């Protein structure tokens, strides 16, 4: 555990928070890589403070059709975790995981939701395990919810609970991909706004 972490006062120094979250996300990529049998890397990672209402703009605008896998985080601190895919990319990922020819999956029914939910589970657990190991605190993910809809609609109920406390929030925004670009997506972490990063 690095010196200087003071999560017990819900107070993480900015650079340390970035390091802890970054490590968690790397670990989530390890989990995803193992699951899909491809080397998946972080292509971009940023830890920043944004206006809550602007968050859907990070994913192509509030009306953009996406597939979102949502998990809520509870435990020592609360938060939200969303894995976001372009629908076609998610369909290709499902084909990859079910060893089907590319192009087989064309919609999101129970089976497909379950596959993407499992990917979300793995990423969420790997992410939280790293955070727990680094900080010594415990966090649990909720069961995943898989939705295909407008980005704004998928995010607004989760963001509502953030907006209740503050119009601004910290987010960890990550994009990831395999070298062959077959698996790509974005990973959004929104810590509960009562956490402070100075």
């Amino acid at each position, binding site marked *: 555990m690095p010196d200087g972490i003071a999560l017990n006062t819900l107070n993480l120094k900015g650079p340390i928070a970035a390091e802890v979250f970054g490590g968690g996300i790397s670990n989530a990529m390890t989990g995803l890589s193992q699951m899909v049998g491809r080397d998946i890397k972080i292509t971009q990672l940023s830890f920043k403070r944004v206006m*809550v*209402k*602007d968050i*859907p703009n990070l994913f192509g*605008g*509030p*009306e*953009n*059709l996406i597939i979102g896998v*949502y*998990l*809520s985080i509870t435990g020592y601190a609360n938060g939200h975790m969303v894995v976001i895919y372009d629908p076609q990319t998610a369909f290709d990922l499902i084909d990859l995981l079910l060893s089907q020819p590319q192009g087989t999956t064309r919609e999101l029914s129970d089976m497909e939701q379950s596959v993407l939910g499992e990917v979300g589970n793995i990423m969420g657990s790997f992410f939280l395990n790293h955070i727990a190991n680094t900080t010594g605190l415990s966090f649990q993910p*909720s*069961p*995943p*919810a898989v*939705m*295909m*809809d*407008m*980005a*704004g*609609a*998928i*995010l*607004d*109920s*989760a*963001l*509502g*609970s953030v*907006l*209740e406390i503050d*119009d601004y929030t910290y987010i960890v925004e990550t994009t990831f991909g395999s070298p062959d670009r077959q698996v790509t997506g974005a990973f959004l972490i929104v810590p509960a706004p009562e956490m402070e990063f100075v």
Partner: protein
Amino acid sequence: MVTTMASTTESIVVGMGELKVSRVSGGVLVCVGIGSCIAICAYDPLTRVGGMAHVVLPRCEGKDGKNPAKYGNLAVPLLIEEMIKLGGAKSRLVVKLAGGAQMTLASGVKNVFNTGERNLAEVIAALDKEGIPITATETGGNKGRTVRLFLDTGKVLVTSVGQEPKEI
């Protein structure tokens, strides 16, 4: 029909927790991609003043000086006030509601996400308190919506993914 009008219309986007009023000729107030949020659309057909609030949360107890528009119970009186400033009359307001979907989320977090229903209930109660009838609604379900209020006509157009646009 809507697309051909697009070149002559001016879209005024009402973001999460925002409230906007306008009487721009050819203008369109729009809430883009709402799930559990509510778009309160109000229109004065005589002066063609339109207003839209993008409510995110059901109610605020006490005062939130920072942004009252995000709460159902506070957005309604604020919307009326802003519309009167622009030449609207409370007695003429035609109010339509859209949104309040129950997004399919994880079973373990259901409680938190009953917001759609709670948002709607608070907005309806606040309108009732003001004595303003609700003319039309397009609410509930589990699909996201984009809601447009056309300032020239007062028409409200609701679009969802994979469905025909619906006028209310």
